């Protein structure tokens, strides 16, 4: 029962911390350090894009073949496009994005900022009259908000492409035209928006939790390692909860399908 007790006691702190960082972004404080924000954005792209797209691709493949087999089983192989359209966009991609974000970016933040904390770099910043919270955390959150929507949509694209490959090329029961017909029929613009909102909500949570654990790390390199592990636990659970909430809020019991009136 140590872990849940740990969470509850940190919840208040994390909420306060997140509130402060978000407020600072909206107050425009990060623009003082715009150079740093851009640098962080660059690091996000160079460091994380490939892994995130890679996972999106693999998950897209899996979704594709499961969908193909399932549709074949219910006797509607041509409808394999539906599975891809819905499963990928609404569920699989946000989760894949959330998982890889928490693994690569979330733990990366804790490791990096935590290392700065224990080698006195954060104190050095404070002593030089720079607000370390703004310089380190607010810039990273703003960078994430700037860069991630595009990375997310590209990931969705990668996932769709992978599903297409799996269904049309690999299983080969549906022609590419047939796939795309159904696929596009079952898409609608709000879905992409909602899916992106889900992904961005997960990303925001992950960046804030990562910054919190890094910023409050203590106890030498070992302490940083423990903080990294703890942040991953919290992030994983939060990704699932955000996913569930997103589904409930956006799709609830309204399927928004183009059939059945």
């Amino acid at each position, binding site marked *: 029962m140590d872990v849940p007790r740990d969470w509850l006691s940190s919840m208040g702190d994390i909420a306060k911390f997140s509130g*402060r960082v978000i407020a600072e972004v909206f107050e425009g404080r990060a623009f003082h350090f715009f150079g740093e924000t851009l*640098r962080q954005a660059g690091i996000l792209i160079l460091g994380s894009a490939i892994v995130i797209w890679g996972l999106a691709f693999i998950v897209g493949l899996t979704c594709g073949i499961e969908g193909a087999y399932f549709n074949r089983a219910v006797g509607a192989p041509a409808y394999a496009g539906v599975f891809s359209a819905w499963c990928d966009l609404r569920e699989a991609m946000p989760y894949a994005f959330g998982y890889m974000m928490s693994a690569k970016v979330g733990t990366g933040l804790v490791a990096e900022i935590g*290392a*700065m904390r224990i*080698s*006195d*770099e954060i*104190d*050095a910043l*404070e*002593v*030089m*009259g*720079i*607000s370390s*919270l703004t310089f380190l955390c607010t810039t990273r959150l703003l960078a994430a908000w700037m860069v991630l929507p595009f990375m997310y949509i590209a990931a969705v694209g990668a996932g769709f492409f992978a599903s297409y490959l799996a269904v049309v090329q690999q299983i080969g029961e549906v022609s590419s035209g047939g796939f795309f017909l159904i696929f596009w029929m079952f898409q609608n613009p709000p879905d992409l928006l909602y899916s992106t909102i889900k992904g961005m909500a997960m990303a925001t949570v992950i960046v804030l939790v990562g910054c919190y654990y890094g910023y*409050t790390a203590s106890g030498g390199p070992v302490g940083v390692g423990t903080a990294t592990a703890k942040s991953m636990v919290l992030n994983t659970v939060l990704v699932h909860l955000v996913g569930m909430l997103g589904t409930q809020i956006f799709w609830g019991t309204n399927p928004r399908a183009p059939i059945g009136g």
Partner: protein
Amino acid sequence: MTDDDRRDDQFEQPPEPTRRAMTDEPHEDIPSNIHDQTREGQHPYQWHEGVNREHGSTDAVEFIDVKKSFGRNTVLNGLNFGIPEGQISMIIGPSGTGKSVCIKHMVGLLYPDEGDVLVHGESVPSMTDDQLFDMRKKFGVLFQDGALFGSMNVYDNTAFPLRQHTDKGEDEIEEIVSRRLREVGLSGAIDKMPNELSGGMRKRAGFARALVLDPHIVLFDEPDSGLDPVRTALLCELIQEVHAENGGAYVVITHDIMSARRVADYLAVLWKGRIVESGPASELFNSPNQFVRQFLSGEARGPLGME
């Protein structure tokens, strides 16, 4: 932690500070963990009979009856002393007696539970955030191991305070940075990243960065840790040269007696959260106080044990 957090958890208003001369009787409010460190039948502060001697100049930084605890661990318990202007002062004492905590109080990275810290007469704990940032511009701090920013090279690290706090053009910045790096002997390492430097080089780079804004007070947190005796001697020489050139009040934390002999104009000996004795270095090296004599000569026998 931001300053708000620190202020929130520490205290509301600093109590009225009172001056107390060192020759008063020691107080009876001795925290329990101090007893663990004392041998049987001894009063923990029986050796703290030394005197705060005059140093003949004004105080740059003053500690008035400062107390600080972390949980059950009392680190500072009634600290009283002043750092003189224009001299190189050294705070020495056994490991773990709160010397780094002392430095952090001077720049407002920590606030005392009781008591007051004055910098040029202004009380640090009662400053607003803006006043605090202004006050910190008077300081330069060299942290243990340099605390350089891992993502920037030596030049950018040293130029960082200038770029953030002044409107100087790149040419002027280049001139200042080159001069400081030359002073510390790192002209050849301008493009290197911190993880490519040796420990001694990192400290020197940190020193250059601390000097860039022409600070009035420079703090050194155990600059000789992890250095061999020769490099330590060279660093001491560097501190003296730079001080002779630039003036100001330098405060060095250390437990290396050789450095104290070489460099210190003013010495304060800290033990169990209080000053045992302080004063001009020459007088302390001839002090009759038993603890000071043991510590300054590196003897195994005396009031200080293995605790």
